[in-house]
């Protein structure tokens, strides 16, 4: 344990990348997820089709492959660089890949949330003359969001854990799992304490998140 604690700066550094990846990807996947949901229920058939195809397709692809495609395809083959330094370039591509993947799950959750809204409300809104965007913005989404707080929490937890895949798959972000692997491989600290330390680090991130969202979901639950 001592050798592990002596390298605590490595651990902290790794987790700082993990947290940054998770937070930014959460933000972008939420925005993209709302957008995809709006497209999915919109009056324009083409938008509905695109959204459906995107969600179904990306959701069915392993994250490893999505990130490989970002790293080796978009970043390297298309030559799109998002930053001057490698560390930040791969970081931003990882954020894009994780957001692209996670937004599908956000969108599915939201759609499920929309389904819980009684049809009468939506019909009432329409009979009041609300347009589609007004309906979505004022009636549907606020309620849907409150219903799906817990599932969205699950998605966020899954995202936090999924950030580890960004350490491999053509990107190599130096987040927590890659620091752990490095400490294993170089024999920097004994394996078991290192693993326990990193596992605890992830639990510290994920467990409170779970309880928080569980609490929040009850707090904001729509009473029907």
């Amino acid at each position, binding site marked *: 344990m001592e050798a592990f604690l002596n390298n605590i700066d490595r651990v902290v550094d790794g987790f700082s990348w993990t947290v940054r990846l998770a937070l930014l990807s959460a933000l972008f996947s939420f925005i993209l997820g709302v957008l995809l949901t709006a497209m*999915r*229920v919109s*009056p*324009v058939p*083409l*938008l*509905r089709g*695109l959204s459906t195809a995107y969600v*179904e397709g990306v959701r*069915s*692809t*392993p*994250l*490893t492959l999505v990130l*490989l495609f970002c790293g*080796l395809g*978009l970043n390297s*083959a*298309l030559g*799109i660089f998002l930053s001057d330094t490698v560390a930040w370039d791969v970081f931003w591509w990882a954020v894009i890949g994780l957001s692209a993947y996670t937004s599908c799950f956000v969108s*599915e*959750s939201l*759609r*499920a*949330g*929309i*389904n*819980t*809204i009684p*049809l009468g409300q*939506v019909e009432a809104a*329409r009979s009041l003359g609300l347009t*589609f965007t007004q*309906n*979505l913005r004022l009636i549907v989404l606020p309620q849907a969001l409150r*219903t799906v707080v*817990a*599932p969205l*929490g699950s*998605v966020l*937890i*899954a995202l936090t*854990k*999924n950030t*580890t*895949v960004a*350490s*491999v798959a053509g990107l190599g972000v130096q987040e927590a*799992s890659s620091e*752990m692997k490095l400490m294993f491989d170089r024999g920097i600290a*004994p*394996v*078991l304490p290192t*693993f326990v330390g990193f596992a605890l680090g*992830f*639990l510290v991130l*994920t*467990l409170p998140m*779970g309880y928080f969202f569980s609490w929040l*979901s009850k707090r904001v639950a729509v009473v029907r």
Partner: protein
Amino acid sequence: MSTQSSVLFDAPGPRARARNKVYTVITLILFAIGLMVVYLGFNDTLRKPELSLFSAEAWAVNPEGEWTADKWEPFLRPETWTYYVIPGLRNTLTAALTASVLAIVFGLVFGIGRLSDRWWIRVPAGAVVEFFRGIPLLILIFFTMALPIVADQLFDIAPGTFQVTALAAVVTGLTLYNGSVLAEVFRAGILAVPKGQSEAAKAIGMTRAQNMWLILVPQAVSAMMPAIVAQLVVLLKDSALGYIVAFPEMLRSFTLLATRENNVIPAAIVCAAIYIVINLSLSRFAIWLERRNANRGRASVRPADAEDGPEGADTTTGPAGTVAVEPTVQEPLPDTAREDSDGDDDGNPKKRP
């Protein structure tokens, strides 16, 4: 689907129709630009500033780019499929199926263990489930691979006395993680069985084990089948992490092929297509199961988390169309049944018969 969607908006009048057309055109243009960037980018012509985007040369298939027939031709050869893709797919399915069976067993054991009325079973079972659910699969796989080093460091077992194969590491990781998630699914399912049934079982003299295996588990499994299948889709997708530890599953087969043929991008596209076909079929299967359950109208078992979110609820269609079961059951479940099962909300699993 379109009839369901139309709940959110009125049947379009002339102005709305015109507006929708405008949106369609704008989307088409954006979509076309996106496709163009991808096409030209992978054609390796986007990066050549000397080429005008409107010249025929920029659009012709570049032999250096990714669209050249040479890079796609390998997929037309039967050897590619018999020596790379099919063995890889078989390894993926081997890992996924082994892990599925083990995860279901693990899930049942720990799901039921968590409901035990003996604290020394309930508490450790809960800790194990929460631990493996909360940590990333990848660090679990790395750790399993490093077990020989642990043996050396802790028990002085010479390094190399045993090694963990990539398959074992992947299967272990997938089992522990997905098993923990399934444990929660089973627990939710068992908690959702109305209490009256257990009381009835007790009344006719069934033992606790009989009650569990004859009354509760079968109904829980049946009610949770869609969620179980959805979790197995997650498991199948996660088996692609085997790529990282050089387990020769499908993604790695495609990498081997790409190393040989120099066609990383085409290989990634074909590989993604295969995964999408398999997983979409499985998701469709989950939806079908869900519908079948709903149609049979088994009112007695309602998933416990129906209140938290619509996942697993028997109403999956509404204004937003059919929703596949959300595969990530992550939020902490209550320690007991929800009000909607039948008002047993005293928060103490001990009270379960």
